[in-house]
């Protein structure tokens, strides 16, 4: 009896590393050339799979840092010393190497212009990565939807995408240092900072919050306490990779 072929709609594919750029001492942006890439939406992620010589496999999800219209698919990866995947991606990977990935994945933490706005993007640490894809896309399509970014990093040296943050309406806060000649904010993204920087609840902003679990919970709770509609807040949490 003839078997009906099962259509696998999400396949692993090989992408070739085009360029590896250091964003900070611990973080690299990896530009990839994926031949069969179907295109993505701003905010989506990919799964990356590494296979050891003995067949052991480790798989992690990474947000896409590039806008849909960018030339290459870019992942920004932070090295976590105890991680199984990120040390390889940030220290070993070289242009010309191949990387196994599948995607794009996700429809919830995604920004499309048709969703309207204003939009408020709140990122903690490398949680800024998918938000950067949204902002690049926003700029590329010359969107008139008002957009603001609130970005929390430990120190000034930990800031990602320093060269382009000035292109957007951005509030930066540092949680672990107060450098000289720093005209940004310091301290955590809390009730007071959000009261000052977020769109008023009456404007019903669409909010995207991405960061470590504790950061996301604290920001989402503060926004709801300020009167924002919980149904307008989309979240993505990440952990050690």
């Amino acid at each position, binding site marked *: 009896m003839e078997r009906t072929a099962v259509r*696998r709609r999400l396949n692993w594919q090989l992408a070739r590393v085009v360029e590896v750029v250091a964003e900070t001492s611990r973080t690299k942006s990896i530009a990839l050339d994926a031949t069969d890439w179907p295109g993505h939406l701003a905010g989506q992620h990919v799964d990356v799979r590494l296979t050891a010589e003995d067949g052991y496999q480790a798989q992690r999800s990474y947000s896409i840092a590039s806008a849909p219209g960018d030339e290459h698919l870019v992942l920004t990866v932070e090295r976590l010393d105890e991680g199984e995947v990120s040390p390889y991606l940030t220290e070993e990977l070289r242009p010309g190497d191949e990387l196994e990935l599948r995607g794009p994945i*996700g429809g*919830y933490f995604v920004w499309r212009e048709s969703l309207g706005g204003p939009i408020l993007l709140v990122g903690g640490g490398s949680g800024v990565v998918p938000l950067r894809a949204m902002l690049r896309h926003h700029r590329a399509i010359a969107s008139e939807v008002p957009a603001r970014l609130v970005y929390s990093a430990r120190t000034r040296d930990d800031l990602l995408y320093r060269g382009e943050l000035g292109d957007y309406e951005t509030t930066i806060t540092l949680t672990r240092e107060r450098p000289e000649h720093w005209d940004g904010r310091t301290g955590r993204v809390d009730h007071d900072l959000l009261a000052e920087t977020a769109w008023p609840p009456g404007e019903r902003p669409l909010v995207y919050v991405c960061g470590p679990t504790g950061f996301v919970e604290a920001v989402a709770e503060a926004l709801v306490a300020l009167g924002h509609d919980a149904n307008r807040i989309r979240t993505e949490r990440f952990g050690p990779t």
Partner: protein
Amino acid sequence: MIELDGNAIAGDLLEVFGVDLTEATTVCAACGTSSFMAEAVVYMGGPGRVARCRSCGDVHIVLVTIRGITCVDMRGIARLQMTGMA
């Protein structure tokens, strides 16, 4: 144990079901809370991936991949509705 959210198992679910489920609405079989799949509490790092209700902590989904085949146990979800926010 790494604590993430439903976005982290979106790839596995997409591979099995062929559609993105992060925007699907789930109703917890234990407490009746309705939420987006993306909001589930997901634990990685054991032999499988476990998604739990963010309200009551009950198990919603267990995903186990053996020799390339992913098995999905969704008995903790009373109802799954494909309604997005968009």
